[in-house]
C-alpha cells in the first residue's frame, strides 16, 4: 500500500513537471503581447523595450523556464506581469478558496439528491417513476450549465428578484458574507452532475437488484429492508462514487464557464482574466494548480475506491 502511494506520488510529480513544460511552451506560442496590452497602442519603442527588460522577457526561453521552475520549487510563485506589485500566491489562494467553496456547495446539493433519486429510480416498481427520473436526468445532463444558468438568472434574479444576478463579491466583504451568491452557480452545475450521477445510480441499482447474490439473499428470507440497505445499496453506490470522484477536479478547478457567467470570483474566472490580459506568469500558475487538483482528485478517488471495495487490491492495480 505504502509502496503504491509512493509510486503514485512520484508519478504525479513527474506529470507535473511535464505539464509545466507543456504549459510554458503553449503560452510561449500563444499570440498576443502583454507589453502591448500594458502600455497601449501609443507606447514608445523605448517604453516597450524598458518594460520588456523589467519583466525579464528578453531572456532566452530555456533560462526563463528554468528560473520559473526554480522559483516554483522555492515556493515563489512570482508576481503578476499585468498588475505591478501584485503577488500571485495570495491571489490564487483567495480565488482557489472561493472555487473550493463553490465546489463544496455543489457537492452538498447534488450528491444527496442524485443518489437518493437514482436509488429510488432503481428500486421502484413503478414504470412511470423510473422513466421520469431517467428522463429528468437525461434532460439535466444534456443542457449545458451556461444555458441553465441563464434561465436561473432570469427566473430568480429578474422575474422574482430573490437572488443576485451576478455572484461577484461587493468591495470590502468576503465570500462568507455573500453566501447567497453561491446558490445560482452551484445549482446550475449541480443539474449537470445530477444528470450523470442519478442515471448512473439508477442503472447500477437495477443491475445490482437483478444479481445472483441479491436473489440469494431474498430467497434466504432476509427482510427486504435489510437486503437493500446492507447489500444492494452499498454495491450500487460504488460506480456513482467513482463518477463523483472523477468530477471533483472539474468542480474545484474547471468551472470556468459557470464562474464567468455568474461573475463568481473563482480560479476559473481568474484564468480567463489572465488569458485576456496575456498575464503569462499568472496563467502558468493557475494552469499548474488546476492540473494538480485533477491529479490529487484522481489519486484520492482511487484510494477511497479501494477502501470502499475490498475486492480492489491496489497493489496490483497498476
Amino acid at each position, binding site marked *: 500500500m505504502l509502496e503504491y502511494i509512493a509510486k503514485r506520488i512520484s508519478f504525479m510529480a513527474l506529470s507535473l513537471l511535464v505539464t509545466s513544460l507543456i504549459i510554458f511552451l503553449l503560452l510561449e506560442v500563444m*499570440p498576443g503581447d502583454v507589453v502591448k496590452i500594458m502600455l497601449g497602442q501609443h507606447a514608445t519603442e523605448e517604453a516597450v523595450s*524598458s518594460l520588456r527588460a523589467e519583466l525579464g522577457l528578453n531572456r532566452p526561453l530555456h533560462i526563463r523556464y528554468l528560473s520559473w521552475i526554480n522559483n516554483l520549487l522555492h515556493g515563489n510563485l512570482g508576481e503578476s506581469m499585468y498588475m*505591478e*506589485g501584485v503577488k500571485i500566491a495570495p491571489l490564487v489562494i483567495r480565488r482557489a478558496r472561493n472555487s473550493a467553496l463553490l465546489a463544496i456547495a455543489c457537492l452538498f446539493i447534488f450528491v*444527496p439528491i442524485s443518489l437518493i433519486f437514482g436509488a429510488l429510480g432503481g428500486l421502484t416498481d413503478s414504470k412511470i417513476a423510473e422513466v421520469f427520473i431517467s428522463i429528468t436526468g437525461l434532460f439535466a445532463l444534456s443542457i449545458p450549465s451556461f444555458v441553465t444558468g441563464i434561465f436561473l438568472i432570469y427566473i430568480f434574479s429578474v422575474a422574482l428578484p430573490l437572488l443576485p444576478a*451576478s455572484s461577484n463579491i*461587493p468591495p470590502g466583504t468576503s465570500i462568507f458574507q455573500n*453566501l447567497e451568491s453561491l446558490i445560482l452557480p452551484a445549482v446550475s452545475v449541480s443539474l449537470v452532475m445530477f444528470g450523470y450521477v442519478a442515471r448512473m445510480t439508477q442503472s447500477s441499482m437495477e443491475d445490482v437488484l437483478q444479481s445472483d447474490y441479491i436473489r440469494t439473499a431474498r430467497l434466504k428470507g432476509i427482510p427486504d429492508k435489510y437486503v437493500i440497505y446492507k447489500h444492494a445499496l452499498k454495491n450500487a453506490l460504488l460506480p456513482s462514487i467513482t463518477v463523483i470522484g472523477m468530477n471533483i477536479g472539474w468542480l474545484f478547478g474547471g468551472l470556468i464557464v459557470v464562474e464567468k457567467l455568474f*461573475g463568481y*470570483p473563482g480560479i476559473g474566472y481568474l484564468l480567463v482574466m489572465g488569458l485576456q490580459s496575456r498575464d503569462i506568469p499568472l496563467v502558468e500558475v493557475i494552469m499548474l494548480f488546476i492540473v494538480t487538483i485533477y491529479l490529487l482528485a484522481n489519486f484520492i478517488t482511487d484510494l477511497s475506491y479501494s477502501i470502499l471495495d475490498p475486492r480492489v487490491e491496489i497493489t496490483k492495480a497498476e
Partner: protein
Amino acid sequence: MCLKKGSKITFTLIVVLLLTLALFTNVSAAEKEILRATAVTPGRLTPGHMSGSAAARVSGAVYDWLVRVKPGTMEIKPELAKSWQVSSNGKNWTIHLREGVKFHDGSKFTAEDVIYTVERALDPDVGHALKENFEAIAEIKKIDEYTIEFKLKEPNAKFMHVFTDYNSAILSSSYDYAELGDTKPMGTGPFEVESIEPTESAILVKNTDYWVEGTPNVDEIHWSFVPDKTTQLQMLRTGAVDMAMEITPQDVAMLRGVKGVEGKHMQGTTQIVLYMNVNEEPFEDNRVRQALKYTLDNEQIIKSAYGLLYDQVEGKVTVNESPLAPVYPEYNKIEERERDIQKAKELLEEAGYGDGLELTLYYASNYRVGPEFALALQQMARPAGINIELVGVPRDIYLSKHWRNVDFGITGWGNRADPVTILRLAYKCDAPWNESHFCNEKLDKLVEEAAEETSLEERKQIYKEIQEVFQKTGPVVTVNIGRWHGLNDSVKDYKEAAPFVGDWRYVTLTGDRNTYNPSEEK
C-alpha cells in the same frame, strides 16, 4: 418506502443549508453614502504606466492634475496650478501652484512634487508613457515653493495640455511609487485608497482635507472590477451598482427598456481611423483613396454602429476625413463628401481598376465600433466594384502584429490634448507611427506653424488648411466616437474630461436607489 427515513434527513439537511445561505445576506453599512461603480479590471494604476480608461477613472479620484480639461471641450481649467504665463516667444512657462494642498499622507504639496513628477517621467528606467511629451522641456527651474518655470526646446502654444493626460497625475516626491503605485496609490485627490483587492475591487474613502471646499460629496466609492460586460449590465439593472463605465451602444439600447437606469453619452476625442498605406498599391494612387471615400455614406456608417441609438448620437458622433476630432476648438466645419458610386467607379476606371479591386482590411474585433465600421465599409464599397475581405483579431494582436504592417486597417486613436501631437506622431513625413506612410510637405509646414501659433483664431485658420489637405489627398477616414456609461438615475453630476479622467468630486446620490423593481419595464 424503505428509504423514507434517509431521504427525510437529507432533505432536511438541504433545506437547512439553503436557509443558512439565504440568511447570510450582506448587512449594509450604516448611513454612509456609497457610490458603487463597476468597470473592467484596470491593470496598472501607477501614473506613467496606466493604459486605458478603467485605470484613468479609478485614478481620477485619487490624484489631482495641474490642470483638467473642461468636459465636452478641450479647453483647460486650473487645478493644482492656480495660474500660468507664457513668455512672448512661447518657450518659457511660469506656473503658480495652489497653496495649502496636502497629500493623503499629510505632507504638503509644493513645487518639489511637480518637479519630481516631471523628472520621474523623463527617467528612462521608469518607462513612462509620456516621456516623449515631457522631452519638450529643456530646463526645469524652481522659483520658490509654489512657482516653477519650464523652459521648452521649441515654442509650444499648448504646453499646459500635457498635464491633462491621465498619466501626468501629480505625485508626491516622498512616496515610493515603484513599490506602492499599483497596490496603494497616493496623491492629493478627493478620495484616498482604503484597500485594493487585485482583480476584484477597490474601496476609496473621502479625503476630508480636500482643497475644494465642500467636496467630495459622497463618502466612499466602491469599485467592482468585472471583466465581463454582460455581468456589469446585470449588476446595473438589478441595482447592485450605480454606474457601469464604458458600455457599448448595444448595451445602451438594451438599457432603454429598464426603469431607473440610463445610458449617458460623453463626448471625446477618440477616433476610429481607417487608414490606407499610400506607399503601396493600390492606395499610392490618390484616385483610389478618393474612390473609396466616395463609396461611403457617413450617416449610414453611424447608423450601423449605433443602431437604435442613432437619434441620441446624431451630431455627436461624426465621420470625417482628417485626424482632427470635432471636439477640438481648432476644428472647422467643412463640407462633407456626398456618396457618389458613379464618381467612385470613374476614379477607379482612371486608376486602372475598372474591373474591380480586391482588398483585405484588418481591424481589432474587440474594440469599440471597429467591427461595425468594417462591415459597413464592406457593404458600401461593393457597388463600386471594391471587394473587401475582413480580418478581425483581438486588439493586442492587431497592435503587435498587423498595425503598421498592413496596408489597410482600422486603428483606434485619440485622447490627445492637442491635435498637434497626433499629427506629429502619425502624419508628418518622419512621424514614428505613420501607419499610412503619408508624406506631404505642405502638411509638415502647417503642423509646425500650428504648434507655435498662440492665438486660437489664427490656429483655427491653419487647421482649416490642414483639414483641406486631408480632404483632397488624405489617407484616412475617421469616425469620431464618444463614450457611454450606464448610470442609475440617482447618480448626478458625474463629469469626465475628454482624456478619460473621471471627476468624482461633484458626484451626488439622490433618492433611494433600491426602491425600484429591476424587472419592471418602462
